[in-house]
């Protein structure tokens, strides 16, 4: 499903001394089946932005369109609910939302609220659990006796269980060990490719963003200040640094090699093997140049 945000503004605590403008005139589109990463400093308005996409927040001005549903400042509860049915959201620390006695019941909470057929959903649960890296013996266990990482996986499965057309991920890997992060991220990538889900992920890590997303959005002070494919965003190292956003290690390594060895890479968005091949080629070229 396609998502369109038009002239979105949002102010928290309006008309109090604590008033805070969190979004100022944001315009952005997310194409069907795309994978977008949003990066930016803490407090730059990332969470506020994505919470508009499933109607958790209403824009104070502007419009949000998801598929055929549009909401604005005056939208009623019913319209918002219709829009919400197509979106799934994984919050930071999603394991805090578990509440049922068994994992199975918790996984059924979302589909039941969405009015999905229970028998069909139930049949799919083992497969879903396997996708998040758990086996079906977990269905009967209490979510509160699982480890932190397992709880996170159950919570994520609970969001995927409704098969959302738009999937929003707000720092889904915060607090996991590197291997766990890796697994969860590839799971989202697999899901996106399999179901053509429009995926929007907030992350602090440039590496994550670069590897998974086909587009990166950089936010600062409630506005989108950069937007483009990872390779383009990486070229703007100086600008990223003024925003205190770190460039990925991989880019730093390539830059350092360029400086020390006097070569230039075609892009900073290369896989290690590609970079090695390219480096070898450049060095040979260079040697050839000096031999002549």
């Amino acid at each position: 499903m396609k998502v369109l945000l038009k002239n979105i503004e949002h102010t928290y605590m309006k008309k109090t001394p604590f008033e805070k403008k969190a979004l100022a005139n944001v315009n952005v589109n997310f194409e069907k089946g795309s994978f977008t990463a949003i990066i930016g400093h803490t407090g730059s308005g990332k969470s506020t932005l994505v919470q508009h996409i499933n109607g958790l927040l209403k824009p104070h001005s502007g419009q949000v369109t998801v598929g055929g549903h549009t909401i604005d400042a005056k939208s009623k509860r019913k319209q918002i609910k219709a829009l919400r049915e197509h979106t799934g959201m994984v919050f930071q620390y999603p394991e805090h939302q578990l509440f049922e006695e068994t994992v199975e019941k918790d996984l059924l909470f979302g589909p039941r609220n969405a009015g999905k057929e229970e028998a069909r959903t139930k049949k799919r649960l083992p497969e879903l659990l396997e996708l998040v890296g758990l086996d079906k013996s977990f269905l009967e266990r209490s979510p509160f006796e699982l480890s932190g990482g397992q709880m996170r996986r159950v919570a994520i499965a609970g969001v995927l269980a409704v098969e959302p057309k738009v999937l929003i991920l707000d720092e889904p890997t915060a607090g996991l060990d590197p291997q766990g992060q890796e697994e969860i991220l590839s799971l989202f990538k697999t899901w996106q490719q399999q179901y053509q889900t429009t995926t929007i992920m907030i992350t602090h890590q440039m590496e994550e963003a670069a590897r998974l997303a086909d587009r990166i959005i950089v936010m600062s002070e409630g506005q989108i200040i950069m937007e483009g494919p990872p390779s383009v965003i990486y070229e703007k190292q100086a600008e990223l640094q003024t925003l205190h956003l770190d460039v990925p290690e991989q880019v730093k390594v390539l830059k350092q090699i360029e400086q020390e060895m006097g070569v230039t890479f075609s892009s900073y968005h290369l896989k290690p093997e590609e970079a090695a091949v390219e480096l070898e080629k450049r060095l040979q070229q260079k040697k050839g140049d000096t031999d002549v």
Partner: protein
Amino acid sequence: MFEHVIIGQYLPGRSILHRMDARAKLASVFFLIAAIFLTNSWTGYAVLGGAAAVIYLSSGVPFRYIRKGMAPIFLLVLFTFFIHALFTREGDVLLSLGAFQFYEDGVIQGLFIALRLLLLVFLTSLLTLTTSPIELTDAMEQFLSPLNRFRFPAHDVAMMMSIAIRFIPTLMQETEKIIKAQTARGADFSKGSLKDRAQAFVALLVPLFVRSFKRAEDLAYAMEARGYNSGAERTKLRQLIWKTRDTAACVLIVVLVAALFLLRE
């Protein structure tokens, strides 16, 4: 969701009232409340009303905050007024509406009670609006500390209060976060059948309790690991500082209360 709830109703600021020592404010409010209940004449209420207005003007608090704080008790005020006005059958009949008769004394008594309630809430709102909860507990602890001699755990009570206060914002944020997470999963907290809503609240309360117990446990361990011991002598990071103006304010209040006492009929 909770955007319009102001924690403990405290409104940070730099007014005279904000900068006064919390102990001076607490003592003043205490004396003024005593005065409110002692007063029984129109002149007395006029003087009290004037004092309340002066205090309000020195607080720099926008009036809508006071209005919001007072709104919930307004019904109570109306209700008590009518109870008194209708059921005190003394003095001349002022007005009779069908079966209801309003007697002069009843109306006067009703007005007095209504005024008392309004002044009470007005002054305590000003206290909490201009004093941070932590300063307030510190002040209370100091006032309660003489009771230590009678084995009243003034420090522990104050510690419990400040921890509770410290966690109100955390709890509200957590509540908001879980409401959002469950709403995103299709739960409906505001509409729907009773059964649906009950289920939505279970989905909110269970995680909230689980998290609160977890947090209490973590905090207890952290405090113990740093050698917290409830009986120990302790110094404070923020000292309450008593200035000349605090003495002056207290003297003024005492004079006012004495004057009000003399105005009693």
